[in-house]
């Protein structure tokens, strides 16, 4: 099982105020587009893409990213991650990120769309030094089936482990198996169709910014349910149940805006893709 369908590996460094990749390697069905600098902050943006158009039976993808001191990077995808039916083996994606002190990495992929009878497992492992900043979001959609039924995939499993200063600081494990669970019921998706998760880790985290983000989400006039809480390490997590990708993205954009303004005195660029 050690053979990968696609591998991507990148080392990023800060060279005179501009973040550049000192090494980029990719192989198989995993690619990265040329770097884009949205503004003059020196922050680089990489769009990841899957030339095959989606994950198939038994596909295994691996991404390794490291950011040196002072490097600033946005990682996003070019479009939604689609997982097609997996009759034999689940599709798997593993991401390992190393962040040195003073680095900034935001990993903001497009939503996950698992098709009928798809099984998908994703594992993100982050290693951060004190003084690094990590921003992460993901959106799980109800998937796709020919007759429009929601949650027709077999299973979706999302694991995120964040190591802070050499110790495990966050362990997040979501696993939806619609055939075995009453997903629309109490305790599960509570009648909503989309699940958004955001994790922010930074020494700059304070109760006041969490309160500000909470109040700002509360003023949104959209039908969502959300929870926000401080983690064991400096940072917080946000969970949102909603009825569309757009609603969840709207909340994420708002949060990222507040964080960038408060901590870095900058306005995040739009990651326009379409």
């Amino acid at each position: 099982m050690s053979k990968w369908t696609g591998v991507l590996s990148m080392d990023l460094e800060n060279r005179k105020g501009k973040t550049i990749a000192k090494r980029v390697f990719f192989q198989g069905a995993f690619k990265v587009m040329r770097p884009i600098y949205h503004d003059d902050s020196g922050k680089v943006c990489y769009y990841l893409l899957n030339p095959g158009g989606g994950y198939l039976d038994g596909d295994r993808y691996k991404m390794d990213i490291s950011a040196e001191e002072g490097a600033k990077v946005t990682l996003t995808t070019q479009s939604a991650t689609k997982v097609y039916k997996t009759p034999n083996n689940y599709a798997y994606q593993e991401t390992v990120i190393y962040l040195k002190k003073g680095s900034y990495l935001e990993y903001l992929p497009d939503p996950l769309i698992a098709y009928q009878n798809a099984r998908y497992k994703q594992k993100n492992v982050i290693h951060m030094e004190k003084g690094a900043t990590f921003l992460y979001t993901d959106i799980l959609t109800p998937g796709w089936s020919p007759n429009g039924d929601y949650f027709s995939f077999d299973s979706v499993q999302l694991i995120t482990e964040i190591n802070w200063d050499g110790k495990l600081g966050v362990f997040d494990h979501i696993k939806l198996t619609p055939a075995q669970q009453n997903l629309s019921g109490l305790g599960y998706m509570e009648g909503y169709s989309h699940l958004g998760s955001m994790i922010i880790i930074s020494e700059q985290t304070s109760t006041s910014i969490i309160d500000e983000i909470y109040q700002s989400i509360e003023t949104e006039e959209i039908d969502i349910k959300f929870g926000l809480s401080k983690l064991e390490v400096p940072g917080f997590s946000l969970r949102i149940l909603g009825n569309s990708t757009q609603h969840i993205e709207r909340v994420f954009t708002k949060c990222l805006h507040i964080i960038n303004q408060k901590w870095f005195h900058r306005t995040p660029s739009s990651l326009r893709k379409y």
Partner: protein
Amino acid sequence: MDNRILSLFQLCDSNLPTGAFSHSFGLESYIQDGKVKDPESFYEWLRVYLHEQLIYTDGLVCRLIYDALRKKDIQKIWKLDHLITVQNLPRETRQGTKMIGYRMLKLAESLYGMPTLSQYRERIDKKQSYGHPAIVFSMVAHGLEVSKQNTILYYLYSAVSSQVQNAVRAIPLGQTAGQTITHKFQPELTRAAESIMQLHEDDFGIVSPGLELSQMKHERVNIRIFMS
């Protein structure tokens, strides 16, 4: 053996002063939303809480701690204490669990005087470990030579019966209704204990989105009778 079971029953008593009665683990958010309002809706919440959260966290940890004690793999215990604490993303439930764990540990240490308990407490005092009731309970049960299956079952029983007591006070339900629920719930506990024995270690920490969200939302509840 009977004396040992009696000794463990003392830890299952919902009157045990660990502070467990002041933590609803998100139940109060559902009560305030009007989603949990009677014996039927509470039963449904309790079922989901047991099968979608407790088995993957506290329940699986009981089993893994028991195995680690049997193999004298003490490092594994400290690792699990760390893991079960950081997987608990809602701050209130995480802090509440630590508090209950520590109080139960101090009480258990004075009642049973087992060296592992003292070691665990010293680690917490030195901030090397966090403290968790499922770990304390498993240490005591293992020390009393209670079987692994029974350890898991009794732990689940104690966790569930505290929540029944909470529901009786908060919804509120009559005492008889509470007892009826506990009685009717027995097959669920047996089934949960069986599932735990079948789980893979990789299943650790699975959370159900709605339950977790209700635990996070509780932090913003203004008028409350529970701390979580």
